[in-house]
């Protein structure tokens, strides 16, 4: 399916947030995930199903004042 990931179009076979984070090799803890403007709790990463056209944002902490 096609999703929008951090502003870029992406083809993925991943069905859940958990699988997506795995595929991207993103360490849990220190990131936050939002799907269609809804924050996904860490405890829901494995259960939250991704859908065609989902807008996914994965954020972390960077340098700032």
């Amino acid at each position, binding site marked *: 399916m096609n999703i929008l990931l951090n502003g870029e179009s992406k083809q993925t076979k991943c069905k859940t947030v958990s699988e997506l984070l795995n595929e991207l090799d993103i360490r849990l803890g220190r990131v936050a995930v*939002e799907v269609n403007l809804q924050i996904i709790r*860490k405890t829901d990463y494995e259960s939250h199903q991704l859908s065609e056209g989902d807008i996914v944002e994965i954020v*972390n902490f960077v*340098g700032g004042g």
Partner: protein
Amino acid sequence: MKEDILTIKGIEFKSRFWIGTGKYKDFEETAKAIEASGSDVVTVAVRRVNITDRKSPNLLDYINPSKYKILPNTAGCYNVEDALRYSRLAREAGVSDMIKLEVIGDEKTLFPDVIGLLKATEILAKEGFIVFPYTNDDPVMARRLEDAGAAAVMPLGAPIGSGLGVRNPYNIKIILEFAKVPVIVDAGVGTASDAAVAMELGCDAVLINTAVAGAKEPILMAEAIKHAVLAGRLAFKAGRISKKLYATASSPIEGML
């Protein structure tokens, strides 16, 4: 020397020099400067993960969250909705309930939109966030933010990155007089003496980023400011002499020839 701990909502801060992690040459320099500062709290920004380059280093690989308290900010947010979104994402990242709340009103000065800031403070405080609003030096605004549930108030000394120091010490003094929560000057400090001035006024801490990261030698400046914050704090506690128009001799008249 007895420890001079600042306690906010049950969180103990050993250092009154709070430091930002932005604008450094690289993560190594960031880590060294923070080490030199003696600070135990660092601000960070919330941004998209680098999806394309998974090998790129992560800030928290250099700044240990178990050694430093992480204070996420909502830098770049120009309205309440964005500030709330970033705050909630920051909390979800699971490191902190603290948020340095920025609702910016103007691109050129980066002055806060205080109306939006007040709204966002109220909402986030109700959601259990420990809110540190970056505000202006208006004592009435500081009081409103306190009433809205801010854990401390962070009046700017001067525009972010301007290095102009504490431009309105009189207003900061008035804020200090009425505030029931800690007052932390955030933004505008240019060098060590500016930090000392803020602390001598009676501020509980100062938050500094550009003055360190932008200095010719950031690690040295971090050390300088560490001493300045301590000096200013001690001078405040020592109770300075009042300013007089005329002289009072320091040596006695008695025993003069």
